[in-house]
């Protein structure tokens, strides 16, 4: 077996895989943020809480109703997305004519409330959620051991990300969305129901967060703070990729996960801050983000 700079390939590959898994969550979550920001112009600060909600709803479905992981993958995004639709209808839509800051503050407040409620009922120690039996175990790839569930997380994220990209960039529905992102007034004047589109788009973005929460439940412990910790990094990812760029969010998400993983190998002390360092550099050189359309 070869060694790279004195680093055994098992370690390198292991961290690369870990990076890809983190990157999967970064990608799915920043994709949701980008979709929401594109059309609603709102920085959805409750995204982390909605991700946590996804993990908790999956746990509750199993614990209280005996509904398994596979059904949860389907049901949870719908349930969490529906809470997003309600939030949009009752609160967010009253803020569209105001500065971005108000949407940010409202969603931040919502995040604190959701997290507070869950902390109150479930504490912070974390609840276990087992890997579905079909995905337990792993593959020996020769150079490393690949746990099946982790491989599945990467595959599922890639499918969801590129499915979303395809719908937005290549379909008629996506053309409505892109057009409404540019000029909602004119799209409305063509007879399209823009308020409905905005509501469903927010619901979809939130559903993506819920989906990521289900994926996370078996790997990270299900606890009220799981979103709050992750979302800070995800915001940095969005800033680096450029607000509102779909492909930017996906590529940056996976890419930064990998970079973070590699940093763990070559300079472990830097791994916790590398994304923020990159963010600072990008902000100085290209403030609109790597894939941003306008400054």
């Amino acid at each position, binding site marked *: 077996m070869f060694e790279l700079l004195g680093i055994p390939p098992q370690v390198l590959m292991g961290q690369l895989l870990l990076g890809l898994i983190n990157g999967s969550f970064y990608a799915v979550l920043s994709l949701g943020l980008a979709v929401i920001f594109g059309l609603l112009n709102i920085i959805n600060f409750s995204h982390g809480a909605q991700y946590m909600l996804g993990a908790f709803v999956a746990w509750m479905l199993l614990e209280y109703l005996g509904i398994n992981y596979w059904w949860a993958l389907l049901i949870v995004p719908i349930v969490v997305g529906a809470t997003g639709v309600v939030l949009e209808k009752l609160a967010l839509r009253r803020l569209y004519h105001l500065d971005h800051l108000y949407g940010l503050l409202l969603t931040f407040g919502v995040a604190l409330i959701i997290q507070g409620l869950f902390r109150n009922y479930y504490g912070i120690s974390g609840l276990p959620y087992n890997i579905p039996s079909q995905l337990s175990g792993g593959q020996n790839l020769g150079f490393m051991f690949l746990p099946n569930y982790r491989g599945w997380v990467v595959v599922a994220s890639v499918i969801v990300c590129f499915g979303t990209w395809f719908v937005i960039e290549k379909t*008629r529905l996506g*053309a*409505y969305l*892109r*057009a409404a*992102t*540019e*000029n909602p*007034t*004119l*799209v*409305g*004047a*063509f*007879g*399209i*129901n*823009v308020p409905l589109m905005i509501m469903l788009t927010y619901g979809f973005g939130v559903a993506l967060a819920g989906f990521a929460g289900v994926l996370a439940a078996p790997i990270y412990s299900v606890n009220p703070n799981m979103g709050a910790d992750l979302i800070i990094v995800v915001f940095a990812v969005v800033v680096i990729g450029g607000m509102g760029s779909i492909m930017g969010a996906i590529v940056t998400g996976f890419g930064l996960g990998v970079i973070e993983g590699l940093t763990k190998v070559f300079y472990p002390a830097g791994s916790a801050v590398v994304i923020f360092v990159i963010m600072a550099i990008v902000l100085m050189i290209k403030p609109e983000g790597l894939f941003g359309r306008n400054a």
Partner: protein
Amino acid sequence: MTEAATMTHSTAAGGDALLRIEGLQGWYGESHVLHGIDFEVREGEVVTLLGRNGAGKTSTLLAIMGILSKRKGSVTMRGAETIQMEPRHIAKLGIALCPEERGIFSSLNVEENLMLPPKIADGGLSVERIYELFPNLLERKRSQGTKLSGGEQQMLAIARILRTGAKLLLLDEPTEGLAPVIVQQIGATIRQLKQEGFTIVLVEQNFRFAASVADRHYVVDQGRVVDMIPNAELDANIDKLHAYLGV
């Protein structure tokens, strides 16, 4: 408005107007810009709104469409009152806007721009017919919408509202900033559309162009319709018109 003007334009419009506007007022926030717009358009007519910069022509079209939402008075389409309606419901009555800034979407290619407005009624032009009218758009259908030349973007902005089944087209200065050959092409297109049965409200500053396509002209000044001149009487009224337009 002079008494003579009032008389001519109520008689000229006749009984069954497709679009009838009475006492239309409009505001941008607190700023009152339309003070009393009155005019009518019959089925199959091409009618222009002439007037100098800032007279309120664009604002009138936006108020008809409901985009200028703070408005008062009466706008009826085939007898249906629209003054309280939202733009998307007004669109469904068969009114479509080609905006002054053209409104081509940069994140959509030419074909996507063309196919964007949903069908609201039967009887729109087929896509084949549209590409026949605008062959350039067919050649460039995969290009980004905003990569087209100004003239092509204008064609696209007109083309995309022909598919939907809307019968009343509001065209806001389609010739603005375009080369003379393109202006001629757009003139030919408008005459063609009239033949196909479309009713058109055309905002223009270029009254020679207006004269080449329209049946009647309404003069807008300081947020009011101040006169109506049938196209046949344009020459006789040329001095008056020059005074209105300040040319």
